[in-house]
């Protein structure tokens, strides 16, 4: 799949990203931790790459688990 099929989820820190990864694993949503794309943030942390189609379920699952989502955007 090309990048167009994905979005990235930016959270506060790597600790939050690791937590988000666990939350999404528990509800069986595919995700991958990747470095934050340079054009989105100068932070040296990681973010989650998820399927574009899962965008809203991801947002809901993370909000329900108390993981603050900063941005969800295309890559």
């Amino acid at each position, binding site marked *: 799949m090309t990048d167009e099929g994905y979005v990235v989820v930016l959270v*506060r*820190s*790597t*600790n*939050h990203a*690791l*937590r988000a*990864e*666990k939350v999404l694993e528990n509800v069986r949503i595919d995700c991958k*931790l*990747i*470095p*934050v794309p340079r054009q989105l*943030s*100068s*932070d*040296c*942390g*990681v973010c989650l790459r998820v399927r574009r189609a899962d965008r809203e379920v991801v947002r809901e699952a993370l909000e329900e688990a*108390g993981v603050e989502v900063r941005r969800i955007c295309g890559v």
Partner: protein
Amino acid sequence: MRQVYGDEMIYFDNAATTWPKPAEVTDATVHFLEEVGASPGRSAHRRSLEAGRIVYDTRETVAELFNAPDPLRVVFGPNVTEALNLALYGYLRPGDHVITSGVEHNSVMRPLRALERQSEDGSGGVELTVVRCSPEGFLDPADVEAAVRSNTVMIALTHASNVVGTVLPIGEVGRLARRHGLLFLVDAAQTGGAYPVDMQKERIDLLGFTGHKSLQGPMGTGGLIVGERVDVGRLRPLKRGGTGSNSELEEQPRFLPDAYESGTPNTVGLAGLRAGVGWVLERGVAEIRAHEVSMTQQLIDGLRAIDGVTVYGGLDAERQTATVSFNVAGMTPSQVGLRLDEEHDVMCRVGLHCAPAAHKTIGTFPGGTVRFGLGALNTLDQVRKAVEAVRHIAGEAR
């Protein structure tokens, strides 16, 4: 390597550091060093992410054991001493009043005394009330409540004495702290993993824990769990530096746990801690506690039956941890300890145990006591042999 103990060695210094560790702890540390090895939360490559997952899983495991509200409220550090320093130095301001007990370890008492003395250099100090405990080391919650003033902001208590093992009534004190709008700081160094500690049920706002005792982890691990009532904006970090987050900013992040976790953590130690706490959870704190109660009562009864031996504390295993202090008439604690080690292969700790206040409370200051600190991996047979060793030494002293 030099062999430093005999095959029949009895290790009764678990109140300082538990040993041996469950095999899973060793396996987890070796696995980290050989298979993972990278910095957690810094880089985004697979080894770094795996290290980050190990640290995160350790947070979850610790949060489960203490019923913390959220794993990201678990702040890791090298030991409970740093955790308590963070809570006390980070939160208290000149003019604040804080209440503590007469059985505290110096990890609580020294920071508080230093904060109190700041008034002498003109910077304004913290006001401190040390609530007296009974000669057995028990604390009456009514005495704590009577010490509350209009400027009281915190009650800082050990959960159990590291000298005589007496358990303090943190449930009652937690309730009264909440009633008066005070923060409640608990030092769980002596109880975590060996005695139930429930942060939410006991209304604990700041919980200091250490990895190397009954959590069964390696030395160099511990931390502070920051409850939801604590104003993170007010709790100043002890140190500032790289966190792997908000790297574009030259200011310290203000969110948990990053605000208080600068610098590369002891990830190999935390890998071991996860395995240690996992071992505790699998076995169950209730089962560990039952085993320790039975050994402790046998130890207390055995020692008390020896002529010339004085045992301190409540003498009731149900009301204390597996730590027992005693003295032998006609001998100093250090003489007893040396003979136990060299002639009977019993390893314990003698002296003041970094807790002069507790020894003043039980009447053994400045001479100190001999302390047997039992752990989950000791046996009733070891208790029997150690009691026989004390009987032998006490018989010769008479």
